[in-house]
Structure formats: C-alpha cells, structure tokens
C-alpha cells in the first residue's frame, strides 16, 4: 500500500482528542444502548437496557452465537464492557481480553504478571474493567491499578496501590468519574484497613483517599477503641454508583475485622458495613448510613447501590434501593443518607426494627458466642454482591436471594498475624459454599431464588426458586426479559413481569456473574460469564 496515504489519514488519528469514550458518553449511556460502558450499565446501576429486539415472546429463539474459552480455572465473575463493537473482559485473576463482539475473535490479550503471595478469602476473582478515552482500567489482584491502551492492550501506566503481603487485594471493576479512576481493596478477612481512593486517569497518581476506617483525627475514629482501627477491615470489593447531580460517589463498605469477634472491637466501627457518599472531586464524606453498627456477622454492604428518582410517600425523592446481605431491602434518601424503610426479604432473626434515628435494634440473641449462635440469614447473606436490576417498565427490583438459610456463628480467639486470616471465630453452615453436585434440596437448608420485589412496599411480587443456591446477577431489558443464571450452570430468561420461564441454556459450569446486553449492526446479543467461558447469545437469524 502507499505509505503516503497512510500518513495523511493517520496524522490526525493519534492526536489527543478526548479519545473514544468521553466522560460525557459515560454520563449518558441511554444514548447508546448498543454499548455497555460501565460495570452496571450506567452510573445509577440499574443493569437495565432499552434494547428490545429480544422480547418475552421471542426469547425462545435465542441461540448460541459464540463462546470464548478462558485459559484460567479461577472463578469467572466478570462483567464485560462493550464499546462500539469491541468487547473487553477480564480473565481471572487479572488478564484482559479484547474480542470482536459479533464473533468472539480476539483482537488482543493482556497477561498480568501477578506477584506472589496474594491472600484472598474467596477466590482469585476479578469483576471487570472501566474505560475512559482510549484507556481501560484494571484493578490487578495483587493491589496494582493498571491502565491499558484499549487498542493494543499495552500498559500505559501501573500504580502499586496496596500491599498484597498484608492481605490487600483488588477484585472490583474500577469506577471512572470524570478524569478519575476509583478503586478500593478487598481483604476484610485479613486485618486490612480499607479505603476508597481516586487516581488521575492520565497518570495513575493518587488524587484523594477516603479511609473507610478513620484514623486519629478523622471523624468517626472514636467509634473504635485502642488500636483496633489499624486492622479494622472496611474493605471495598464491588463497584459503587455515581450521582452526577450531586457529584457523589455512593459506595458500600465491607465488614469490620475481625469478622466474628465483635467484642474485640467495641464501638460502632464506622464506616464498616455502611454506605458512604463521597464528593467525587475531593473524596470528602457528604453523608453515611451504617446498616449494622458493630457488625458481628461479616455482612458487608457490598451490594450495588441502585439510584433512582421516584416518588416516596407522595413526594419526589432521590432514592437508593438496596437489597442488603443482612436480609433487608432498604430505601434510603441519597441527599442525606436517611433510611426511609427496611423490609426483610428472607427469614432473619437479628433485626428488631429501627430506632427513631434509623439505627437498627439488634437482637442480642443473634450475636455470636463461643458456643455458637444460629442466625438467619447465614454468613453469605440473604443476598450478596450478585448484581441486581431495576426495570422502569415494571417498577420492580430484581435480585438473587438465599432464602431460609442460616449459619452458626462462633466467636473465637484473635489471631492477627500480618497477611494471614483474621476472622476471630468460625462459621458453620448447612449449605456447602461450592457444590458441584446438588443433592436433594432440604427445606431446612434454604434455597436460592430470583426475586422480583416492589420497592415501594418491600414485598416480593414473584419469585423463582432454584434447586441450588444462586450467585447470578440479573439483567432486565425493555423487551421485558430478565436474564440470570445460577450455580447449576443454567442461564435463564424469565418474563420480568411474572417470572415465567422463557428460555434456558445449560452452560455446564458454575455461573456467578452479571449478564449484559448489547447490539452490533442492529442485532441484539446477551453475554454472560459462566464456568470458564464468556457465552454470547442472539436470536436465530
């Protein structure tokens, strides 16, 4: 080919021009439903798409379009991004793959070089990426934040943020707001001290940091005693939401450490097991609400906050819908963090209502003891990080639940040693956390389900029960189709209005991720990570 032509064409193309995905595009994903630009599909985290080619009455015609098999046997929890026909996803622990969204054929792969000695409680997971301009952002398992050229997969910068030898790790998809990349560390089981930090997207330099466990001189420090704050947990391992009007990052915070020995850390233990609202430019705390003061059960607030402007008791309000691991569905006012309601959605025996200030009255009978205490819900919670969805067409909130499920919590000795487990006790549960073979379900052990809940009342409108538990995320669409899946390896489509099964596919491997939808050249696709592959479906042509 003639090089002169190339030169002429290309001189303009690499000059800085804001790049492909501007922050304006991130603010308005509704203008481009063909893409999936952030972890939860939008800053308000509805995991809802206006695409409607796949509908309740034709979902039965879904068929496999392509599969991308991983070269990893680690648990696959990633949500992919789709940008203008290119899909980006992480391969656990921390690789990145760019593929053609129509065919699954790779453009490039990026292999992360993991340093040794990473302690992780629950798998070498990664839940996804963020994008800004022509740059992807990856939170590497060993505590480094990495920027990659979205066109080539080449590192443009790498910042070591946290020390993996002390139990810090990254598993969340970063959140990009304006020109900053926001991330926090997992490690609540390792005596870390959590934070949420923002980094300059261009350089990787830290811009602000909010300590989720305040140190001396920081507000909230008096909710800890002695030096308990130094290993007080408060991890962050799931992407939060962003409210552009208030310029607030709304982020859940993990449990205090040690997990099950709450008597060793007297006080409320702010801001563990809370939701925090931070100014996106400065990281300053605007408000917080603590779901569980002095949390004794490891019930992190590690759920996706769903932001919505809706009427509440006759008044238009800026709300947060929050189905919490502790078994309650909360509605909060996101201008001030006031709790407006809390309704149990599964069997629970720890919560006895709120006091006048919205603080939960905790049953003393549910607190762990050395002998052991039986508590509903169990340690994995009534729900967990499994991505919820809100459909404006039905007005319902959809999420995965573990119903009628308990654990026996035993308070134990403190055993802090840097980088080692720091649980302060034990938990036994009747349900195996990982089951490859599902035995006959026993109603005393609980069950998994997908729930459709009316956020105005907290009441379940419909529910689909599964034989096994579920860690599936939920996607809803303007075609009134709800996609989810579960540990049995099924990927299902239900009618979002009534829970009727429309279609299912057995993917042959544990499904523990959130589905997304996108379109290329006018054809709608649905993607789900399952087992050790990325699966994509579309309607038969």
């Amino acid at each position, binding site marked *: *080919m003639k*090089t002169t*032509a*190339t*030169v002429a*064409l*290309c*001189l303009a*193309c*690499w000059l800085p021009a804001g790049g492909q995905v501007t922050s304006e595009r991130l603010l308005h994903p509704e203008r481009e439903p063909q893409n999936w630009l952030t972890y939860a599909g939008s800053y308000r985290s509805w995991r809802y798409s206006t695409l409607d080619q796949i509908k309740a009455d034709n979902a039965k015609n879904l068929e496999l379009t392509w599969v991308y098999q991983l070269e990893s046997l680690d648990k696959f929890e990633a949500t992919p991004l789709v940008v203008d*026909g*290119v899909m980006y996803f992480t391969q656990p622990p921390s690789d990145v793959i*760019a593929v*053609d969204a*129509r*065919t699954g*054929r*790779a*453009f*490039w792969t990026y292999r992360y070089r993991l340093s040794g000695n990473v302690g992780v409680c629950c798998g070498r997971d990664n839940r996804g990426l963020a994008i800004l301009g022509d740059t992807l952002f990856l939170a590497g398992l060993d505590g480094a934040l990495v920027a990659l*050229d979205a*066109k*080539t997969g*080449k590192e*443009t910068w790498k910042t070591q943020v946290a020390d993996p030898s002390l139990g810090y790790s990254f598993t969340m998809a970063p959140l990009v707001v304006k020109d900053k990349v926001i991330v926090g560390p997992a490690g609540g089981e390792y005596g870390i001290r959590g934070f949420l930090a923002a980094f300059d997207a261009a350089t990787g330099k830290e811009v602000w940091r909010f300590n989720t466990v305040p140190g001396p001189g920081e507000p909230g420090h008096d909710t800890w005693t002695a030096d308990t704050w130094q290993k007080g947990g408060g991890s962050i391992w799931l992407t939060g939401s962003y409210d552009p009007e208030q310029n607030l990052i709304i982020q859940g915070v993990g449990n205090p450490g040690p997990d099950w020995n709450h008597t060793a850390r007297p006080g409320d233990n702010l801001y563990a097991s809370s939701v925090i609202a931070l100014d996106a430019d400065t990281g300053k705390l605007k408000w917080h609400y603590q779901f569980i003061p002095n949390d004794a059960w490891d019930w992190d607030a590690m759920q996706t906050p769903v932001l919505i402007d809706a009427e509440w008791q006759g008044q238009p309000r800026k709300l947060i819908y929050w189905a919490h691991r502790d078994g309650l569905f909360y509605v909060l006012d996101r201008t001030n963090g006031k709790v407006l309601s809390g309704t149990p959605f599964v069997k629970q025996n720890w919560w006895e209502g709120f006091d006048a200030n919205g603080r939960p009255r905790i049953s003393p009978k549910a607190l762990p003891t050395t002998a052991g205490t039986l508590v509903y819900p169990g340690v994995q919670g009534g729900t967990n990080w499994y991505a919820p969805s809100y459909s404006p067409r039905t007005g319902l909130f959809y999420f995965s639940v573990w119903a009628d499920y308990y654990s026996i919590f035993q308070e134990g000795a403190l055993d802090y040693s840097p980088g080692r487990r720091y649980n302060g006790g034990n938990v036994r549960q009747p349900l195996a956390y990982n089951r490859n073979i599902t035995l006959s379900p026993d109603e005393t052990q609980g069950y998994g389900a997908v729930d459709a809940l009316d956020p105005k009342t907290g009441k379940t409108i419909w529910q689909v029960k599964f034989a096994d538990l579920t860690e599936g995320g939920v996607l809803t669409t303007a075609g009134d189709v709800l996609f989810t899946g579960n540990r049995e390896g099924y990927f299902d489509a239900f009618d979002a209005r009534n829970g009727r099964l429309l279609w299912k596919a057995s993917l042959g491997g544990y499904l523990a991720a959130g589905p997304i939808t996108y379109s290329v050249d006018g054809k709608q696709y649905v993607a789900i990570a399952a087992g050790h592959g990325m699966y994509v479906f579309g309607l038969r042509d």
Partner: protein
Amino acid sequence: MRVALAVFALLGTSWAQGPPGRSFPSRADMDAGKKLWDANCAVCHGEEGKGARGPDLTTGRFSHGGADDDLSRAIRNGIPGTEMPGFPLNEMELTQVVAYVRALGRTTLPAPAGGDAARGEALFLGAGQCAACHRIGNSGARVGPDLSSVGLRLAPVDLLASLVRPDERVAQQYWYVRLVTSGGKIIIGRRLNEDSYSVQLIDTQDRLVSVMKDDLKEYRLIKNSPMPSYEGKLSQEQLRDLVAYLASLKGTP
C-alpha cells in the same frame, strides 16, 4: 519494520521440531548457510557474494523480489530466462542460505554508528512522520510496530537495514490486509487475528475492526512492508541519527 530478534528470543524456536516457516535464524543457521553457499552459490556469485557470472547479492537489491519468500523461491525453482538454476534444498536449508545472503548484504551497509539521538528523535517526530504509524510509549499511532523498546531488540545494523530494506523480512504479526467489502468499502490495516469466516485488524485510523469474509469481494494479505525504504529519502547522516535514536529506545523499566 522488522522485530526479528525479539520474536525469536520469545519463542525460543527449535527448528528440529518442525519446518522453520518464518522463524528467524540463529548463528548456527548462518554457519550452515555459509556451507551451503560455498558448495552451491559461490561458484557463480563469488565467495563473498560480490558477483561473477551471477549478479552481486550484497547490495540489498534483488531484481526478482527481495523478501525471504522471493529469495527462497528463486533458489528452489531457479529464475526462468536466466542462468540461475533451481537447487534441490529443503525448507530448512533454504532458510539457512537466505539467512546467509542477508548477512552478506549487511556488509554493504554504511556504518550505522555515530548518529545523534536527539536529532534522530526530532526527525522521527517531525519530517520523518514516523509517529503516523509507530508508537513509542504512549504516543504515536498503533498500526505499525510499537517501537518503545526496539533498541533492546535490534542491533544498530539491523535497525539501519530495516530503514533501508524494510521488505527483507516482515514478521507475520505485522502483515497487512487490504479488504474490499461487497459494498466497495476499502479497509486496510494490520491483521490481528483471522479464522475461516472473519478477520480482525487495526486499521490505519487505529480502529479495531472485524470483518466477515462473506461480506468481502477482495482479500489481499500484504507480506511486504507498508513502510517505504528510506534509502535516498534520508541522508546518510539522517539515517545514522535515526538509528541512534531507535537504539536508545529501551522501554520503561
């Protein structure tokens, strides 16, 4: 531009395990190539390749095609209408002889040393327009080979050879494709991936593009370099400056 040594080092290619394909030759291959040269070629092209009955092969210019494949074909099949006969060599031997012919060609290159890296950088970013295709660090286009650490991979003499004889050997990952869709749209770029039904590339505007083959009326793989030879376009001094700059590129630690 060639990125020969890096590819070779990464793959650690062992020729004993299969045909050499487009792997890159080792010192042992050069030695074997010399033996084959002495036995078969020297009688016409001269012991040092300067030419006798056959033409001088040290100039880097070949009238019947200068890519590795062209040279191999000429050696295996001969060149019709000339005195050049075909030689019954196997794939490995052909690659070895070609490697030796390349080595002979290096002897006629001007000395690459003595350039000024700062002037070379100015040339790279300015009049040379190199960044229109090549990326160094976080700037420049992506369609050509990334040169961020080319100084670690190529010796100055090989950098110079790449500039003046870019077609000698283009590593497979840098082959271009030229596609014409059934609608008449022309797509040109560096091929990234391909299967029976589709091809993926990065086009000349740095876009990731995937095309279904049943939507193409023309598919052409371009194995020679889209980069022109800079011999005669740049002065000897400019070439040395550019080599000095490229040799200084060692990536980020």
